[in-house]
């Protein structure tokens, strides 16, 4: 990592001519190295770090006045670059998946996932599963069921938000509220979180 401090980075990137060009080149190299590590082995390597670094540099320069110095400048720039990279990777990874496959009015469990009551613990487990099914049906809204279901299919809330014309904060809250409702439902029915977890571990 460069020894240049963050004030110097901002100053250099906001100056003219060679000073600015050199700073951009230096920052580009740092971001590219980080992005190369990040893009490796994530979401099937479908995103080129070189493509991302260009967008990242533009965004960093555009947002430079919002840098508050809470972290090193290069760390701040890297958060922007990584966010762009991951978003792009997720978008590409899920681009061919239709929302129709993600949405459903109700959920059920695969027969093979159902517990075998001939084993000791499984009677208890069957009770938990029945409760879970009931809570999903009764206490979640349609939207919450869709969002939870998509999440269980591996779709990040960011992608779900984009595909449904919502935003990430809202979808995260939707899912989190659903989790709270399900947890409370179990607690009200007398199930302890730890017991449930042990059953499904």
């Amino acid at each position, binding site marked *: 990592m460069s020894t240049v401090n963050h004030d110097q980075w901002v100053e250099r990137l906001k100056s003219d001519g060679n000073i600015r060009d050199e700073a951009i080149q230096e920052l580009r190299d740092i971001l590219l190295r980080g992005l190369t*590590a990040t893009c490796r082995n994530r979401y099937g390597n479908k995103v080129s770090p070189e493509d991302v670094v260009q967008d990242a540099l533009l965004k960093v320069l555009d947002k430079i006045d919002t840098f508050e110095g809470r972290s090193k400048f290069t760390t701040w720039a890297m958060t922007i670059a*990584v966010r762009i990279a991951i978003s792009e990777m997720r978008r590409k990874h899920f681009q061919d998946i239709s929302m129709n496959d993600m949405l459903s009015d109700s959920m*059920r469990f695969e027969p093979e*996932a159902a517990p075998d009551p001939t084993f000791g613990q499984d009677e208890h487990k069957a009770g938990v599963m029945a409760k879970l099914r009931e809570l999903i049906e009764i206490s979640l809204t349609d939207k919450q069921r869709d969002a939870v279901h998509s999440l269980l299919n591996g779709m990040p809330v960011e992608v779900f938000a984009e595909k449904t014309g919502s935003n990430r904060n809202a979808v995260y809250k939707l899912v989190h509220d659903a989790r709270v409702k399900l947890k409370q439902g179990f607690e009200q029915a007398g199930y302890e979180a730890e017991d449930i977890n042990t059953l499904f571990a």
Partner: protein
Amino acid sequence: MTTLNKEQIQTLVGLIVTTESDQITCDDCFGQIGEFAEHALNGRELSDGMKIIQQHLQQCPCCKGEYEALIEALREVEFQA
């Protein structure tokens, strides 16, 4: 009607039992994630403000994935205090 398989049920149960309160949004988290990452990489003790970020990361798989990618990138550029 959709069907959940064994792994999905396990994941759902995991999500339910680990649910804790969360005071911030993904955008709030992003705004402080660089500072949080530096704390983690330097092994510094977390302030109350940083604990709120940690709590969100424990609740939000989306932000957690980005955070892990960020840590990998910062390590690659030989992050030093």
